[in-house]
Structure formats: structure tokens, C-alpha cells
């Protein structure tokens, strides 16, 4: 069930985060603007994704949105109230609503705590449940994320990466959150396990009416899961659009380059052509003007001098580029891939059909595993 998606759950207003390094032996202090004047809204019930390459500030922005970091400037609004100036104690009550799933399932779980204790901990802080009630809820949550309730007594090292990520998700759900932020929640996992966790997140989102904020670098994962997408480059949002619109016709030259750079799993489309020059500039010393101009194939003199701001271009889309109209028209249309042979299509259909035979039920009713496909990874 989708709630009224019109209203905003979270809003960032011109948020900036600066990190300062101590004046070093070799020189003066460095200031990095990891996130620079970013404004965006997250609507209730949607999956909002933030995509970009390393160092673009996507993880910092995610932490700012749930006040794991305090913004240097600007404000963050949760349910209409500014949370950027709240004290830690005031913030603690809100943590119940805003939960985080981290990238690395190996370092984000306390190795000395049993799985049951890990999942129970948020309930101790945020609820008035009794000990027995909490234990019951732990068992229920473990089942919901596709693990067995008996696993509560075991320790994180006994589990695979995928299972640990499921434990992390169960813990995030324990306080009954409204918003879950996943910082690269599937990027450390193998493809087949990644697909299981993606499906799980989608099921849980539906079941618990969650708003999902996803930080990722993998455009295919984002394409699969998101409603709206923000593309970041060097601390700034360069494009923001609905999923289909963005993938049909990316407007910003960086978004285009990102999409062209993804290798497509088909030997017929050998055409990753990157017309990006060089490396990502250091965030310590971002270029003047448009931050992307040093690598942009469309850059003009204007781009070196002036800074394009994120502006609306209709249909809720925003783009930060002076030349977006010409850029958007100049791009080559991706070629249509020839379909697989009829026999191969049958095989894929068979696989889909048979692999779901054991688990037709949604995640909420995952039963004790049958003899085949036993444990979830």
C-alpha cells in the first residue's frame, strides 16, 4: 500500500558540510566541502537514490539527512521540523524513525554481541517492551529477513556476508523506523546474493510502508529499485529526475557519461565509449565554474567561469548545466540489443518459474527452509 506520496518526509535546504584537516607539518589546514549547498526533498513512501562515484559526497549527504553528521550550513527538515540544530538527546528520540544500513556487513556488527542482542538493542532504547516481548520480536524480525529464529544465539562471524547484511536490516527494522537509509547496502555482496537482498529490501519496504534512501554507485541496482534519483559529482547534485525519465534521456553530460560507462552484459553492445578526460579532480581543490568542466566533452568558456545551478526543467526534473538542451540532443541512442534465442528465453522463463516454486510466499511468511535451496545467503 502506498501512502500519499505528495508530502515530504525529509528535506535538505542548501546543506553544506565542510571537513577541516588540522594544519599539517607540510602546510596549512585543508578544507573539503564534501557536500556543497545541496537542496532536495524526499517524499513519503518513495525510494530515493543518490548515485555518484567515490568522493562525490553521497555518503556524507546520507549521514547529514539523518543527522549522523551536523551540517556546517543549511538545514535538514524531518517531518517539517529542523533537526540540524537539535541536541544529541533530542535527536535520540528521532533515531527510532531514521535507521541506517551500512555497506560493510563485516565491520558494522559488533562481533562480541550475539545476533539476538544486536537486533534487540534498538528495542531496549526505543521501546517499552518487556524482555519476553522483545525476544519474540527478535525471532519475528529474523524470520522476516529470511533467517531462522534460532540464529539469535549465534555470533556474526558464523554468517556469510549476505546473512550479515540481513542481520543489519533486521536491526534497522527493530525500532520500527519510517525511513531507512542504505549506504551501498548490496555492493559488498556477490551477484546472486545481491539479488536476494534487493528483493528483501523491496518486500520489507512495501510491508512496513518505509521510505527508502539508497546510496549506491551501481546504476543497474539504482535503475531496478528507485523512484527518483539524484546524481552527485564533487559534492553537488548535478541532476535529479524520476527513474524512467533519467534513464530514457539523461540531461547532464556527467549522467550520460556514467550511463555509457556501465558495461552491459551482452556481447552485442560492445560500445562503452568514455569521452571523459582524466580523473576526478581532488575534492580539496574543486575546479572553478562548473565542477565538471575539466572532464566534460561539451564544456565551453562559460563553464570555466560561471557556476550552473540546479534548475527545474519541467516534470519535476532538475539539472545543473548551461548546455543541457544541446547536450541532451547530441547523445547517441543506445542500440537495441538482439533478443536471445527462443530456446534460451524458455530456459530463463523456466528458471524464474522453478526458482520461485519454493518461496512463492512474500518475505513476511518465509517458512522454515525446505530441503532444497536451504539457507538464504
Amino acid at each position, binding site marked *: 500500500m502506498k501512502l500519499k506520496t505528495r508530502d515530504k518526509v525529509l528535506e535538505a535546504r542548501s546543506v553544506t558540510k565542510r571537513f577541516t584537516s588540522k594544519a599539517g607539518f607540510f602546510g596549512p589546514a585543508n578544507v573539503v566541502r564534501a557536500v556543497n549547498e545541496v537542496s532536495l526533498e524526499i517524499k513519503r513512501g518513495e525510494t530515493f537514490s543518490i548515485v555518484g562515484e567515490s568522493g562525490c559526497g553521497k555518503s556524507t549527504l546520507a549521514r547529514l539527512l539523518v543527522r549522523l553528521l551536523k551540517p556546517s550550513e543549511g538545514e535538514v527538515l524531518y517531518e517539517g521540523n529542523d533537526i540540524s540544530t537539535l541536541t544529541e538527546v533530542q535527536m535520540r528520540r528521532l533515531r527510532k524513525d531514521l535507521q541506517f544500513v551500512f555497506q560493510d556487513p563485516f565491520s558494522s556488527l559488533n562481533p562480541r554481541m550475539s545476533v539476538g542482542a544486536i537486533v534487540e538493542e534498538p528495542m531496549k532504547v526505543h521501546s517499552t517492551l518487556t524482555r519476553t516481548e522483545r525476544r519474540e520480536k527478535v525471532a519475528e524480525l529474523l524470520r522476516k529477513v529470511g533467517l531462522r529464529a534460532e540464529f539469535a544465539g549465534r555470533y556474526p562471524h558464523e554468517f556469510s556476508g*549476505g546473512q550479515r547484511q540481513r542481520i543489519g536490516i533486521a536491526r534497522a527494522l527493530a525500532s520500527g523506523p519510517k525511513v531507512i537509509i542504505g549506504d551501498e547496502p548490496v555492493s559488498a555482496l556477490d551477484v*546472486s546474493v545481491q539479488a536476494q537482498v534487493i528483493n528483501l529490501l523491496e518486500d520489507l519496504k512495501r510491508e512496513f510502508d518505509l521510505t527508502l534512501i539508497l546510496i549506491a554507485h551501481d546504476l543497474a541496482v539504482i535503475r531496478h529499485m528507485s523512484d527518483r534519483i539524484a546524481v552527485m559529482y564533487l559534492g553537488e547534485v548535478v541532476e535529479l529526475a524520476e527513474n524512467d525519465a533519467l534513464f530514457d534521456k539523461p540531461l547532464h553530460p556527467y549522467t550520460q557519461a556514467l550511463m555509457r560507462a556501465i558495461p552491459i552484459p551482452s556481447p552485442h553492445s560492445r560500445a562503452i565509449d*568514455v569521452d571523459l578526460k582524466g580523473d576526478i579532480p581532488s575534492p580539496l581543490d574543486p575546479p572553478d565554474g562548473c565542477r565538471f568542466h575539466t572532464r566534460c566533452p561539451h564544456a565551453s568558456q562559460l563553464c570555466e567561469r560561471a557556476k550552473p545551478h540546479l534548475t527545474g526543467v519541467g516534470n519535476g526534473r532538475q539539472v545543473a548545466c548551461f548546455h543541457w538542451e544541446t547536450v541532451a540532443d547530441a547523445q547517441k541512442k543506445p542500440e537495441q540489443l538482439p533478443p*536471445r534465442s527462443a530456446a534460451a528465453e524458455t530456459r530463463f522463463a523456466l528458471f524464474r518459474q522453478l526458482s520461485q516454486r519454493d518461496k512463492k510466499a512474500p518475505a513476511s511468511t518465509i517458512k522454515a527452509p525446505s530441503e532444497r535451496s536451504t539457507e538464504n545467503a
Partner: protein
Amino acid sequence: MPAEDSLAGHAVLSVTGLALRFKGAAANVVDGVSFSVGAGETLCIVGESGCGKSVTALSLMGLLPRSVAQIVSGTALFDGRDLLSLPPRAMADIRGDRLAMIFQEPMTSLNPAYRIGDQIAEAVIRHRRVGKQDARKRALEMLDRVRIPAAAKRLDDYPHQLSGGMRQRVMIAMALANDPQLLIADEPTTALDVTIQAQIIDLIGELQKETGTALIMITHDLGVVAEIADKVAVMYAGRIVEEGGAGAIFDDPQHPYTIGLMSSVPSIGPRSGRLATIGGMVPTVDRMPSGCRFAPRCPFARPACDTVPPDLAPMSEGHSAACINAPLETTFAEAGA
């Protein structure tokens, strides 16, 4: 030394029946793996963590300590010699010369205490009778070839002064400095951002065309495979479950694992519904199934699958799969209805 044209078509490396076992383990971690790669050809070995793809590469390079991993059986013919039975000294002469490798982590595979120019030169001096001057010249030439801008200025940089993509370029320069006949690349772009990954894949492809080096690329990313492979070997739990030309593997996959792997990858094309997934997880070495190693996770498995491990059987010209149910659409004709 330029690549000899006469070699084209002949196998540069030909591995037969390779089986490896870790000390004290209950089953082989690599079990009866065979493949070959010719000059100018690219073979991609694809599989998930723990499938044995990296161990295979390390054993070919002689980089697996024999005290840890035992070669149970198999040969690896390279240049008329069996790599698996070469004494360590002879192996050290080939490694970095005729046979080179690049690794996933460009941060840790370079020595942080030495200038990159010196590190490349060292690789040249180890295998060639050249002076320091000439080796340095060669290093500069190589940095140019891997398209490092202002290479002359970069020669005296330390690894920490370079970005991840640049470090991987340096690694490639070092690997190719002695014109190897075979280059093994183990997940060379996994640690890199997509736009940088695309640049490195382009570079590897171009260099291979220039030099005619045979390339074995180890990866988990089907997108990378589609981009550069001539031949593909899909590995699961220490065995090759399917092999063939890139076209056959992607357009006409036969093994349930290959099909499952491809179904699990989200696509950037039109949005689809739920992803089809492979249930369960990779078996550990001490709980290796005695029949087909994929059977416990395979939606098509029947009792016969648990008896003997299936061998690779030809599906079409140059394309084979190790599944007793292949082709699936015939075996399960009634299920599809």
C-alpha cells in the same frame, strides 16, 4: 620482442585437469579445470567469491605456497613447459617476463616506498640485460603507452601521489614492460569507479591489440566479460560448469548456474519486476556435494544430480555445459507449459 604471428591460433597456455586442494581440506578447491588461451585471445573466467577463480590464477603464477595448497593433478603447458612442475627458480624467471599478472588492489600491489619509475625499471632489470638508464627509458615508454599524462614528470612519483585509476595503469605498465606472452588480470577494475573502469577496460583492450598478448581476465562482473571476452569459462565451486564463445554464453546459456547468474543481475534497460534469484549459497569446501556441486541450489535438480559430478558435454560447436539436464527446455518441456 614482438608477438610472433605464427603463434596466432595456437594455445599460449593450455591447462588440463587442474585440481588443487588446501592442506587438510576435505575436497578439492579447484577440481578438474581445463582451458586454453591463444595469442591475442581473451579468456574470461567468471564466477562468484569462493568459486576458485583466483586460486587457479595464483597456482599458474606459482604464487600459491606449496605448503598451503597442493596440486593434486593437472598440467599447465606454457612455452613448451609445465608451469605446475617447474622448480621455483625457473618459475621466478618466467614470472614477470613471459607471464605477468595484475591484481585487483592497485593500492597494495605497488611498493609505497619506491618511486613508480624505479619499480617498473626493476621489473625490466630483473629479466633483461639492460643498464639503469635503458630500464628507466623503458619505464617512461611504458607509462606513455598506458596513457599516463606527462609521463616524464610522473616517473618520480610515489604510489600515494596517484589516483586508483593511475595506479592500475602503472601496474599494467609494469606487467607489460617485458612484452609477456600471457597476461593474467585478476579483477583489475573491481576497485575502480565506473568511469575509470571503462577507461581501464578500453586501455587493456587496445594494448592487447597492439601487442598480441594472450589475456586471462578473472572477474565476477558479467558486464566486463561481455565487453572484452572472446571465450568465457563460468566457474562454480571449483569446477567449470559452462564454457564457450562469448556469443554462445550470453545468447544461449545452458547451465542453470549461468542462467541464474544472468537473471540475478539488475538491468539498466526497461525496468523489470522482481529479480529471479539463486537460492542458498556457495557450499564450503568441507561440505562439498558429492554429485553436481550446484545441485543443492539448482531449481532443476533431480535425484540423479546428486550421484556423480557431471562432465562438460558439448552443446554446440565450441560450447559445452556440465549439466545432465541440458538442454533444459527439452528436459523440462512439460514444466514450461
